[in-house]
């Protein structure tokens, strides 16, 4: 293991997040088990107080988790000098088989956790705890996911040894290599470009339909997830070529560096945020007929849908500007 301060910070953070979520999950179990809103017994009052504990622990844990996702990538990038052949985070993550799974698990936790926060927000607006069961069931699902993520990340970080030969991002995301990442880079821009624009249009359309008629929330959620995946694939396939102005550099992480104006932060931030709000629209859909939510839910869903569309537009605008300004023409 490399005793890099960044690694220690990440280990500390993921340990804390797991601890807090296990604690919250335990409270969630008690709440699911003993919940009886009709009763005014001391036990029920105690459980209601515990919902405040959960709503303190979970958002805090999630904020840390969100920050640590970026810290994770940044640390991987910071460490690349210690691995032969690694030129940026892409190479560092490939040093051992836990790097990329840890990253994916990290992102999955962010999405699920974001949905939890949206359910929580909706729940606090109903006068009879309308979402108490779906909310705490989701929380119980989130706990193993977070534990898995902590395990993967710990395995990855503690397994790092300086000077291990790794593939650099040039070869990992280069053409003609096998593996998941290489397939992304191998997706030809010729078909990816129209596919990306089509997904963007479809998302916009579904959004407008939903906002007008309140129909198609689930379709909109699916499309926003699709847009997230399509946007990442397009970034690796062709957008980043314009940003780096290099015809064969497909690395998705160098975008976060100073040389490229930290453009990765707005790009990934908007994608992740848009993914969460988009999924949130779908997650709330089954509950819109609950009596206590009839007044507040449509407004919340509309706000989320608007945010999704605005973030997708922001992403497209940013990559569009870079494309227009890039000296590279494919």
């Amino acid at each position: 293991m490399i005793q890099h301060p960044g690694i220690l910070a990440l280990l500390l953070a993921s340990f804390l997040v797991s601890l807090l979520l296990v604690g919250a999950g335990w409270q969630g179990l008690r709440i699911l088990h003993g919940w009886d809103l009709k009763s005014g017994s001391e036990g029920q009052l105690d459980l209601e107080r515990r919902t405040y504990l959960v709503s303190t622990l979970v958002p805090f844990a999630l904020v840390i988790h969100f920050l640590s996702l970026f810290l994770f990538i940044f640390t991987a990038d910071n460490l690349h000098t210690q691995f032969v052949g690694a030129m940026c985070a892409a190479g560092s993550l490939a040093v051992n088989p836990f790097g990329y799974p840890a990253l994916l698990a990290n992102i999955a936790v962010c999405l699920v956790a974001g949905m939890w926060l949206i359910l929580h927000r909706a729940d606090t607006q109903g006068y009879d705890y309308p979402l108490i069961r779906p909310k705490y069931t989701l929380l119980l699902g989130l706990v193993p996911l977070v534990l898995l993520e902590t395990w993967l990340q710990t395995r990855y970080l503690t397994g790092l040894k300086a000077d291990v030969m790794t593939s650099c991002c040039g070869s990992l995301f280069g053409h003609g290599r096998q593996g998941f990442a290489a397939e992304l880079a191998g997706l030809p821009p010729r078909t990816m470009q129209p596919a990306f624009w089509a997904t963007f249009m479809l998302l916009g359309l579904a959004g407008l339909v939903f906002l007008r008629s309140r129909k198609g929330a689930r379709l909109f959620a699916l499309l926003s997830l699709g847009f997230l995946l399509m946007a990442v694939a397009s970034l690796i396939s062709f957008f980043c070529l314009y940003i780096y102005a290099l015809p064969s550099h497909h690395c998705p992480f160098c975008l976060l560096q100073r040389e490229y104006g930290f453009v990765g932060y707005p790009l990934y931030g908007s994608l992740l945020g848009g993914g969460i709000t988009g999924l949130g629209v779908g997650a709330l859909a089954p509950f819109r007929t609950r009596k206590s939510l009839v007044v507040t839910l449509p407004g919340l869903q509309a706000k989320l849908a608007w945010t999704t569309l605005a973030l997708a537009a922001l992403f497209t605008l940013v990559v569009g500007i870079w494309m227009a300004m890039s000296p590279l023409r494919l």
Partner: protein
Amino acid sequence: MRAPTQRYRNILDFALSSLLRRKGRNLSLTGVYTLVVFVLASLIFFVQALKREARELLVQAPDMVVQRLVAGRHDPILAAQAEAIRSIRGVLEVRPRLWGYYYDPAFGGNLTVMANEHEPIAADAVWIGQGVARNMRVNEGDLISLRAYDGLPMLFLVQKILPTESELVSSDLVLMAPRDVRSLFHFPEGLATDLAITAGNPRELPTIAAKIVERFPDARPILKAELLRTYEAVFDWRGGLMVVVLGSALLSFVIFAWDKATGLSAEERREIGILKSIGWESSDVLLLKFWEGTVVSLTAFLSGILLAYVHVFFFSARLFEHALKGWSVLFPRYRLLPALDGYQLTVLFFLTVLPYTAATLVPIWRAATVDPDAAMRT
């Protein structure tokens, strides 16, 4: 008007006035907190600055250096081998280098004596680094005396003192004409300390190194990238080790924070009870406590970082020097170049604010969920 942010501002106002009302308690907490941030930040800034200096030192270094090993020890290399290496495909340039260490008994440290390759220096003249000038108390135009291999003194005119840009690189350097180096050390003609090699394409360096070892089995090629990795690994290891040692300090701080947050004074409990009874909700009290924590954390974090910055970059990290720097004692007063980046600040934030906040969550929740009617029952 009800602005959505007004609630946050109102409660922030009250949080500030609450903090001021309990000055003593909060000052002691902030003080300890600042100290923890200060120590960790000093450490991280210092290691980072050393890493950067090392990197800068290596920017000027050649892509690859070839040494000769005799009985496993570094030995002068035949300058003639340069010709043979130059013929290897991909090699752009081979330069024999001439340098050595000179032990200065007056100060108990080594100077790096080097033949200047870039610009010619007159015979019996030297260019010296800042550290050397400071220790010998000389200025440009003064004479210095070095003891040659045979014990006889040699006099040199200090022609120039090297610029300060990066002292770690040049601080202990003494540059002179190649002939002077040879007579100072009695270094035979035809031999060099090592060979510096530049490749047309840096990616071919490992192949070139392999070919050199194949042709000259007693040669040891060292790649710049390898050196860089080694430096980084050593600095990270030392820094990480210190963080682990400091971890115990961090832990006791967390326990202290937990204790402070749990041990709410009777007065504070009464106040929360009153707030609940006059219409504050649990989440309002949580927000109040969150603001208090944020103010304390930010104050401690920023002042700790500011102090650490001054400590590392203006006072050369007096507290850690010996533990971390570990090379020549010639640099008692060199200054590191100030540098801060978002990454280091984020790491610091994770290592200090995070554990503090996590430790206070449960006590805060306990305080906030006191029954509103408790205030009526006392």
